[in-house]
């Protein structure tokens, strides 16, 4: 049998142990390098930050608050987690909190220095922007896609990339597979479960019917691709990208069938029993299930790269000190950052606003906690999966209330193969060198540099990622 599943009873030893199923031959890439994994988590709407569009911090004496709750509790290099990051204490030694990073593809090139459209499409691409009918689109791929494509060469997996999302209010995807090629994300955990694990049979014997179905699937895909070839001759050159992308996706599906045929043991995640596609789920339940699917897929060697977007939602199931019915979308709540300063119209509600925002943003961190702990608790080689993985967490904004893409949230968790020196806080605000608490801001660090560092961490020798908006090219210094 080419694919097997440990079921309860049949694989009692496996139950309770976070077994790294693909250990047999898949912990190492085709070129002999250790398997590495990238998970990009993206929180829509920014965080509690006093960063203006230029990055200068608001002093908190006027209408805008001056809280830097995304920041660490101590400005030193040894990371002391701040109020939003407290759920990450168990993986603190794996965290690298990077401050003073701008998304310069947005801050330098967008009208007014940024807006929802520009900020979103550049956040993970650092690319130039194409505008049509007032809608923005990226002219380059996002970092997750570039890494996924390359890792798949080194370590072929059935799912080059998993794109998942806790749905709700947001202003567009930050994920791109190529120029003007927006990536859609699956929001239904049960649909993901079925896509990942359908066909894992409980027997250990070859199943001729499965083999026939698999072979038929490949020939069906061949048939559809032939149809695409016929259609391709009819379309204009501006539409070739549509046909070519569709064809490429089908080729990937064909490869998936081959790779799944050789899939070794896999322990399925729990929590999906009895659930149906399209089931209504509260956001926290959905978020946890999506995280568990990423963990299971990585433990099973089904993917090297995953993304998880978290929409800008009101966490209504948690305490809402500002008021359970004050807002319908998270971005409106965030906009009050401009009003809760001591001279702002909402000054009287400042403490409530801060508490509700912290509760909301900390919930997002609990998803990272679940993810990072899940990797950390999975043995791999002499260490654990988090040693060989990287979680890159960011957002399109620092302060969503002023649509600032300066000093954006940038948190790395994991060592990416003992590449990054973690457990640290690094501030790239030049003004903070002399005075760590300064409100002044100046930086040469951009997401371009962070993403270049990610590529180098995964073993590639790129010296630049993205467009020409970065002040300096190359990787971010001091990370390794």
């Amino acid at each position, binding site marked *: 049998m080419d694919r097997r599943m440990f079921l309860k009873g049949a694989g009692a030893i496996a139950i309770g142990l976070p077994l790294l199923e693909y250990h047999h031959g898949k912990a190492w890439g085709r070129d002999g390098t250790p398997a590495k994994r990238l998970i990009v988590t993206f929180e829509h709407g920014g965080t509690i930050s006093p960063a203006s569009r230029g990055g200068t911090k608001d002093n908190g004496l006027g209408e805008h608050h001056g809280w830097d709750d995304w920041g660490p509790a101590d400005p030193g290099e040894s990371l002391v987690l701040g109020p939003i990051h407290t759920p990450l204490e168990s993986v603190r030694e794996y965290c690298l909190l990077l401050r003073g990073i701008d998304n310069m593809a947005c801050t330098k090139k967008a009208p007014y220095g940024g807006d929802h459209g520009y900020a979103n499409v550049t956040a993970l691409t650092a690319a130039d922007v194409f505008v049509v009918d007032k809608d923005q689109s990226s002219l380059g791929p996002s970092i997750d896609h570039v890494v996924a494509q390359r890792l798949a060469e080194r370590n072929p997996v059935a799912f080059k990339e998993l794109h998942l999302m806790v749905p709700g209010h947001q202003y567009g995807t930050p994920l791109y597979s190529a120029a003007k090629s927006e990536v859609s994300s699956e929001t239904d955990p049960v649909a993901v479960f079925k896509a990942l694990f359908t066909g894992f049979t409980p027997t250990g014997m070859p199943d001729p019917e499965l083999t026939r179905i698999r072979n038929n699937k490949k020939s069906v895909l061949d*048939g559809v691709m032939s149809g695409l070839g*016929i259609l391709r001759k009819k379309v204009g050159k501006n539409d070739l990208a549509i*046909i070519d992308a569709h064809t490429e996706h089908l080729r990937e599906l064909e490869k998936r069938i081959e790779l799944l045929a050789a899939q070794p043991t896999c322990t399925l995640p729990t929590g999906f029993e009895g659930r149906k596609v399209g089931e209504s789920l509260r956001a926290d339940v959905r978020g946890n299930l999506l995280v568990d699917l990423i963990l299971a897929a990585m433990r099973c060697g089904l993917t090297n790269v995953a993304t998880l977007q978290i929409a800008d939602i009101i966490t209504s199931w948690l305490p809402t000190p500002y008021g359970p*019915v004050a807002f319908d979308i998270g971005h409106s709540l965030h*906009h009050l950052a401009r009003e809760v300063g001591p001279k702002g119209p909402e000054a009287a509600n400042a403490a409530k606003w801060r508490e509700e925002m912290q509760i909301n943003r900390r919930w997002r961190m609990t998803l990272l906690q679940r993810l990072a702990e899940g990797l950390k608790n999975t043995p791999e080689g002499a260490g654990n999966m988090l040693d060989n993985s990287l979680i890159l967490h960011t957002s399109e904004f620092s302060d969503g209330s002023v649509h600032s893409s300066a000093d954006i949230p940038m948190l790395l968790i994991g060592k990416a193969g003992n590449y990054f020196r973690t457990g640290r806080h690094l501030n790239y605000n030049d003004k903070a060198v002399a005075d760590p608490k300064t409100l002044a801001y100046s930086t040469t660090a951009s997401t371009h540099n962070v993403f270049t560092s990610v590529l180098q961490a995964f073993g590639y020798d790129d010296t630049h990622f993205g467009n020409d908006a970065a002040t300096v090219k190359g990787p971010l210094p001091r990370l390794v």
Partner: protein
Amino acid sequence: MGVACVGHIGGSDPDPNGGAEGTREPGSAPLDAAPARLHHLTARQYVNTVRDLLDVKDASPVLVDDEGDVPSMLLAEKLTAAAEYLVALKAHKKFVPCPVDGAGSDECAKQYIDTFATRAFRRPLTDEETSWLLTVYLTAKKTNTFAQSIDELTLVILQAPQLFYIAEEGLAESSLPGGLRRLSGYERASRLSYLLWDSMPDAELMSAAKSGALDTKEGVAAQAKRMLSDDRARVTLRRFVVDEWLGLAGTRTHVGIEDMVKDPAVFPVDSPTLRAGMRAEIEHLVDKVVADGGSIKQLFTSTDAYVNAPLAKVYGVTAPSGSAWVKLDTAQRAGILTRASFLAVYSNPTVKSPIRRGAQLVKHLLCLEIGDPPPTVNPTPVTHEPGKSQTIRQNVEAKTSEPVCAGCHNIVNPAGFAFEHYDGIGAWEQVEAGSLPIDWTGELRGTDVKGTFNGAIEMSQKLAESRTLKDCLVSRWFRKVFARSPAPTEAASVLEVQTNFAKSDDLKEMVLGLVQSPAFLYVRGAE
């Protein structure tokens, strides 16, 4: 923020001289159109198409609508999974002209390709396409039974790009201006069908395409009239007016009827039943208007309301048993803008919002270019301030009086103030905050129906006669039809439809006008 608020009618950008290469025919726009552009069915269109194709009304394949034009991996995966789901239903077997579970024959498979794939692709197959599908079948047949081979062939057809994409080429004709091509009858059939029914053409439409009846715009109009009488067209028009024009399904900037947030302490009448009633009412009203003749005047002045018990309470009328039509107070209600769904969606959780109501009216129903709010806008809902005797209107005026705000709010506010007698759930309030007198006078600035009005009833009567509103409706309809703004080569078509629609009071005339315009009937070569 310097936002131009000049009251320009957006979206149409009409060029009265038409395209440079256009040849004006008596009574029609110069012949010109946009370049052909490949696009694929929406998730809804795919589901409707396969339901009609397989004659399985309750089939529910799951697709996703991407944000962009280039298909995502997720879409490709779901399309494949949808085909597998549909074949597993075995509904395709009834279209095979021989016993599927028998030995079958290659000739039977050929006939199946000729009939089933022709319907799926919405046109006769080319020789190359027939050969392709036959090869799929013959390849499968080498290792599978006849039934399994038919399944495999059907799997290919149900996710074939020839089904999923709409690729138009048009036909060259010497009488046409250079570069312009007449869409074939089959291409026109697909345009009509996906526009009016969100699904594939039916047998009669395909027959009209085959006979050449769709080669003339009169023939297109005849089919469009037939299709408009079908319930599916009513759904399309309802969805266009309710969800898209009024925006009651929600967008990226606001939530819809089902998701709006209301404070139960302020609005104890709110409940899922009330919201279901709100949606049913606005949809029934649009349906009734269309069924009664499509009158714009009726749309903006009717006092007919289909209500359930909680909605009757909001309107202050006797609650029916179940749901029923009632007449609303003519002093309080007139048409779609005075209904609870519109008024509640464009309110805040605790209070009414003249800004949100006014912005939706002037931006989306009148197409006035007022730009988006600056990123630094204060989103705090304007409410009654404790201890102060000021109305929402007075607080809004105070908050938006600064020059940086006033440019746009001088247009938005006077429109939104028309609704001041309706609270945040859409109920009539005679006074505000217990005792404050309400001023609902206003003005529709930047439109053809200038001058002040006294409240939403008078304003709705003005809107019912407004050319600005009708022009905007055409622009929005055009955008729905083509999923984009008009190209410069389509400006004359838009202007022609607007001009003709201005003489009519029938919503359906707008539909018929656009499907007879050069923008709909012709195409330029793909670029």
